[in-house]
């Protein structure tokens, strides 16, 4: 019995080796990470909602219909309507679009910043690295929401300022993680070999370091998307994020909206449910990716 099991493992390994790296990660996600798989599916649903919003939403999210105001969930309005008679389901579907847009743009910005600064800072070290690390210390001394609110206090509300604030915050704190990975990669023999073969700094960074810090960068980005969506919602909840009439999950729960919730409790349920599922999905997927992409755990 034992021998058969060992042979099977060897065969499975051989088969796995034939798969391209990313397909292998997806395969292992499905086989080994049930929670990560659930997260991935939630993220997929969110992407479908965001991309297909005009097709999926039965009504215009901004269309006001006085006759339909505060009607409970029904076949016509699956999630009910709000105090202006706007269809809540349509608003939530379009809300997915705004959440995803803010999240993706913020994470794009933060990934570029963290890779650029983290890799350069870790690879060259020295005074610039020292100074940058002190700046990172100063930025992360402000709790996340406080930092973002400070940026909003300077630049004002609006979708682009929210993206900028989230991107800078994620980029600065992420650069420390990337720097750490760069330091670890830099010490390895193959980098020394590359340098000995006459590889310049630029080429070493682009060809040898960068691919090896992509794993933590991807994990950071996935978890960062969840955080960005959550913070954007918090800001819109406080009335300091994406201004009305744009339908965002956060503003659908704001103090303004709460005035109608005793009459229409469904207004309190659905936006928060979608927001939670979205953040939950990204967190689950990010956690699973961290385990799957960590080279120390690879092949286990």
């Amino acid at each position: 019995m034992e021998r058969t099991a060992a042979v099977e493992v060897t065969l499975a390994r051989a088969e796995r080796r034939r798969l391209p790296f990313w397909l292998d990660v997806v395969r292992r996600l499905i086989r080994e990470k049930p929670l990560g798989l659930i997260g991935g599916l939630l993220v997929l649903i969110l992407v479908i909602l965001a991309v297909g919003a005009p097709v999926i939403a039965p009504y215009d999210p901004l269309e006001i219909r006085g006759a339909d105001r505060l009607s409970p969930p029904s076949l016509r309005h699956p999630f009910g309507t709000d105090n202006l008679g706007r269809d809540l389901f349509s608003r939530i579907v379009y809300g997915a679009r705004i959440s995803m847009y803010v999240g993706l743009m913020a994470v794009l910005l933060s990934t570029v910043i963290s890779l650029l600064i983290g890799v350069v800072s870790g690879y060259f070290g020295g005074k610039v690295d020292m100074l940058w690390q002190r700046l990172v210390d100063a930025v992360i001394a402000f709790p996340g929401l406080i930092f973002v609110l400070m940026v909003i206090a300077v630049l004002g509300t609006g979708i682009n300022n929210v993206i900028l604030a989230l991107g800078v915050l994620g980029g600065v704190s992420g650069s420390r993680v990337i720097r750490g990975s760069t330091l670890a990669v830099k010490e390895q023999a193959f980098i020394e070999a590359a340098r000995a073969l006459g590889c310049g700094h630029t080429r070493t960074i682009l060809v040898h370091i960068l691919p090896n810090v992509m794993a933590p960068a991807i994990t950071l980005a996935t978890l960062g998307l969840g955080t960005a969506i959550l913070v954007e919602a918090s800001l819109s909840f406080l009335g300091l994020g994406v201004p009305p009439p744009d339908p965002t999950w956060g503003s659908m729960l704001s103090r303004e909206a709460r005035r109608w919730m005793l009459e229409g409790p469904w207004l309190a349920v659905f936006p928060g449910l979608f927001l939670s599922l979205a953040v939950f999905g990204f967190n689950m997927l990010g956690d699973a990716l961290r385990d799957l992409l960590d080279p120390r755990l690879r092949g286990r």
Partner: protein
Amino acid sequence: MSDYIIRRLLLAVPTLALVMLMVFSIIRLIPGDIVDVMVSEQAYAADKEAMREELGLNDPVYQEFGRWLWALAHGDLGQSLWTKQPVIEELKNRFPVTAELGLYSILVGLIIALPVGVLSAIRQDTLTDYVARSFAIAGISVPYFWTATLVIVFMPLWFDWSPPLRYVGWSEGPLDHLYVFLVPAILLGMYLSGSVMRMTRTMMLEVLRQDYVRTAWAKGLSERVVVLRHALKNALIPVVTIVGLQLAAAVSGTVIIESIFNLPGVGRYFYEAIVFRDYPSIQGTALIIAVAVVLINIVVDVTYAYLDPRIRYR
């Protein structure tokens, strides 16, 4: 040990200097003429000249920065434009409320996180573990402003009970005072418990695989003694760090929770300062929060080094 503390304190000096510079720059980074906005929209001063004086925009930047630091050294954080009170006084009055909320939240968080984390680790990869881990990630993912909204909306509908939304001071009745914090602390605590639970689980798993734990099992000690006396003690050391980090996260949380439940704390003060564009208050509050976080981090690091001697020799 004292070497370590001194090194750690010295490392905080440039950080604090940069924090001050960042906070000082807030007014100067605003695009467009801030003075116009402040006079026309908020009417904080009669004319532009008075406004410039009020915001300290008249003299060269380095002079103003020097003056600002000098005032800071004397415990002067400037004056709120909105209430005309010294910012430091406002913060002093509000700090106890936030500290209390933070303390209760952390307590709730630990009461949930530690037992569940330990249970999840000793029952690794069972249904219990999966449920516990899902709850931990849910705790981090479900925003407290949503759970707070649900409580405020559904408690009156279902149980004819609503959480108090008016603050009661300690002197007006200790029990009523604690009652005010009940729901906010539970909601914030549930959020904080997520990370602590995950850290507890990870560290327990690591420690449970070590030789000395196997020895403890081999000696025939009961599960209770092995898990609680031998393993948990060592597993808790890194948990100290995460609890420290959670304190900073709790500050973000207080901004939202205090606004919802009308608690007159530092978080709500910061939120109102931003809504009213009260820049001296924004600066003062942000500075105090950041300094507090830096100090908490030092205390956490020193505690960590004290608990785990290996750290000091790195």
